[in-house]
């Protein structure tokens, strides 16, 4: 397997891990950070698939602005998820 393929597999596994962590964590702020990490890795995956246009949009919207909006919403509500 080439270096490109290995890098892609690592990135995809980390994306799934970040998304699972975002679901599993009870602290909502930590979950949002996990979601931002998964989004940033998704933008890296778009770049590896040679779609830099989509990668810039994903990094700007998914990793930065969505995180900002979630952090603002958590600041105005509760931080811990209830059972």
């Amino acid at each position, binding site marked *: 397997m080439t270096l490109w393929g290995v890098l892609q597999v690592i990135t995809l596994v980390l994306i799934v891990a970040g998304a699972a962590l975002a679901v599993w964590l009870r602290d909502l702020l930590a979950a949002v950070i996990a979601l931002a990490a998964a989004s940033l890795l998704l933008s890296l995956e778009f770049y590896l698939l040679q779609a830099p246009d989509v990668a810039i949009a994903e990094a700007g919207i998914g990793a930065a*602005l969505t995180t900002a909006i979630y952090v603002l919403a958590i600041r105005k509500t509760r931080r811990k998820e209830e059972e």
Partner: protein
Amino acid sequence: MTVVVRTVARIIAPMILAFGGYVIMHGHLTPGGGFQGGAVAASALALLAISFGFGRWKGIKAPLSFLEDLGALAFVALGFLGIGYTFFRNVLAASGGLFGAPVPPGPNPGLLETGGTLPLMNWAVGLKVIAGLGSVVLLLGLFGGEDDR
């Protein structure tokens, strides 16, 4: 936010704004364009707003709304500029004026001055996206419930 967050934001926000401006400016040559560059620049605005608080941004709602309308109207007006031939005809290309340098024959790395109306349209879209996404973040921070902490 803490002094660490404020210092990092003060250093890194101008770089993000400059990169957003670069992506918008070179939209007709490199990957990205008005939407992508506007999203990057709006994330710099969100970073500044979150780290320095929303107190000083109270009066900016009306200017942002005006800028959003201006971006949309400028895009449509640039489209109507070529209505004598077809809608969205690139009348500025190879005219010798603004962004109207003629394209030299043969392969070239991509010349910034040859875009015609495309860079102006990218700036219109970028202005609209910066104002729209920035006002989304600012309104979410300004209004709604009180802070929980």
